[in-house]
C-alpha cells in the first residue's frame, strides 16, 4: 500500500469529479455544512443517523450498511472518495467503516473540506441523484476493530495511543474544548498509553504530514514499538480513526485497531485502572 492508494489530493478530485465510477461522499456529524455547500456530485453521509445503530451503541449491521450504500447509489466496484469537516475525522471513521465491511476501493481527500474551502474551490448546493444499486457488503473485519477487553488486555503489553488533546489525556478536560464539559465519565487515560494528539499528524490545512514526519512522530518521538500491535482510542472513535488511518494505511503498520466507544466507554467502566497526569 502506498499513499496514492489511500489518499487523493484536491487537484486530483478537481480533475476526476465527473468520472463515472468515482463517487464523492461527504461525511459529517453536523450535516448542515453539506447543505450549505459541498463538492459537486458529492452525496452525504450523516455520521450519527446513517452510520450508528439508532438503538444500541454500535455500528449499523451488514444489512443496514448494504441498504445505506444501495440507497446512495454506490456500487461495490466504485472508487469512493471520502471527505468531511473536522479535519476529516468523520471521513476517516467512515473510511475505517468501509474497510470493516470490505469495500477496498476507498480513499480520503487529503485535507478534507477544510483544505477545499481554504483553497476557495467551487462548492455547490445541488444534491446529485444517483440510481439505487444492490450493494453487497462483506462480513465485518474484526481485525481492525478493538473492544474494551482488548484495551484492558493491552495495558503494558501493546502500544496504546491516546490521540486526544493533552488536556483531555491528563484529565483536565473531559471533551474537546469546543464541547461543553459535562460528561459523566472519569477523566484521565488508559495506563501505559502514549499521548499523540491526532492534530500532530496533520498540517494546519488538514492535510497529512509526510510519511517521514509521521514515522518520526510515532516511532521516534512517542516511542511506539513498531514491532508490536497497536490500539488507538480517543473520546468516541472518530479522531482515533484518523490516527488508525495514519498508522495502518499511510505507515503500513500491520496490526492496528481502532477502539470505537473509546473514553466514553472506558471512562465509565467500573473497576478498570485509570492514570492521571500529562504524557511523558
Amino acid at each position: 500500500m502506498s499513499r496514492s492508494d489511500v489518499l487523493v489530493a484536491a487537484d486530483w478530485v478537481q480533475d476526476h469529479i465527473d468520472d463515472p465510477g468515482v463517487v464523492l461522499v461527504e461525511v459529517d456529524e453536523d450535516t448542515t455544512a453539506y447543505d450549505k455547500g459541498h463538492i459537486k456530485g458529492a452525496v452525504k453521509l450523516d455520521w450519527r443517523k446513517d452510520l450508528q445503530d439508532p438503538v444500541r451503541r454500535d455500528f449499523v449491521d451488514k444489512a443496514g450498511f448494504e441498504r445505506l450504500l444501495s440507497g446512495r447509489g454506490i456500487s461495490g466496484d466504485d472508487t469512493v472518495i471520502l471527505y468531511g469537516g473536522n479535519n476529516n475525522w468523520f471521513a476517516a471513521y467512515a473510511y475505517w467503516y468501509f474497510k470493516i465491511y470490505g469495500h477496498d476501493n476507498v480513499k480520503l481527500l487529503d485535507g478534507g473540506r477544510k483544505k477545499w474551502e481554504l483553497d476557495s474551490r467551487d462548492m455547490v448546493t445541488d444534491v446529485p441523484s444517483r440510481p439505487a444499486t444492490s450493494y453487497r457488503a462483506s462480513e465485518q473485519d474484526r481485525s481492525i476493530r478493538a473492544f474494551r477487553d482488548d484495551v484492558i488486555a493491552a495495558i503494558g503489553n501493546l502500544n496504546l495511543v491516546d490521540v486526544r488533546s493533552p488536556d483531555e489525556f491528563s484529565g483536565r478536560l473531559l471533551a474537546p474544548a469546543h464541547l461543553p464539559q459535562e460528561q459523566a465519565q472519569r477523566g484521565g487515560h488508559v495506563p501505559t498509553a502514549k499521548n499523540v494528539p491526532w492534530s500532530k499528524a496533520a498540517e494546519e490545512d488538514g492535510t497529512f504530514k509526510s510519511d517521514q514526519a509521521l514515522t518520526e512522530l510515532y516511532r521516534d518521538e512517542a516511542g511506539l514499538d513498531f514491532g508490536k500491535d497497536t490500539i488507538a482510542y480517543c473520546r468516541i472513535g472518530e479522531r482515533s480513526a484518523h490516527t488508525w488511518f495514519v498508522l495502518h494505511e499511510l505507515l503500513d503498520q500491520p496490526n492496528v485497531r481502532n477502539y470505537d466507544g473509546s473514553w466514553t466507554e472506558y471512562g465509565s467502566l467500573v473497576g478498570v485502572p485509570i492514570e492521571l497526569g500529562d504524557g511523558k
Partner: protein
Amino acid sequence: MSTPESGCGAPAGGIKVTAGAGDQSVVQGHVTSSGTPVPSGYARLLNADGEFVAEVPLGEDGGFTFYAAPGDWTLRILAPGGVRVERAVSASTGTITELEVAV
C-alpha cells in the same frame, strides 16, 4: 448539548452559550473583515505550550465558541486567501470571555 452518543465534531460556530457560563470557561467571539462577518474560515484554540486543543468552523455570523479550562490560550483564525491571525486570550471559570477579531 453534547451527550456520549454524539461525536466530537464541532458544528459551525461552535455550540452557543445561551445562558450564563455556569461552571464553564467560555471563550467566544466573531471574526470580521472590514466590518463584515467572515463565514468561511476556522478558529483554532492552542494551549499555553502552543499545542492544538480544538477547532471550529466559523458560523454564518463569523462566530466561534470554545469551552476551555481556566488559563491562557491562543486563538488562531484561518480563512481563505492565506489569512492567519492570532490573539492571546485568558479564560476563567464561570466567565464568558468575548473576542472580536478583525482580519
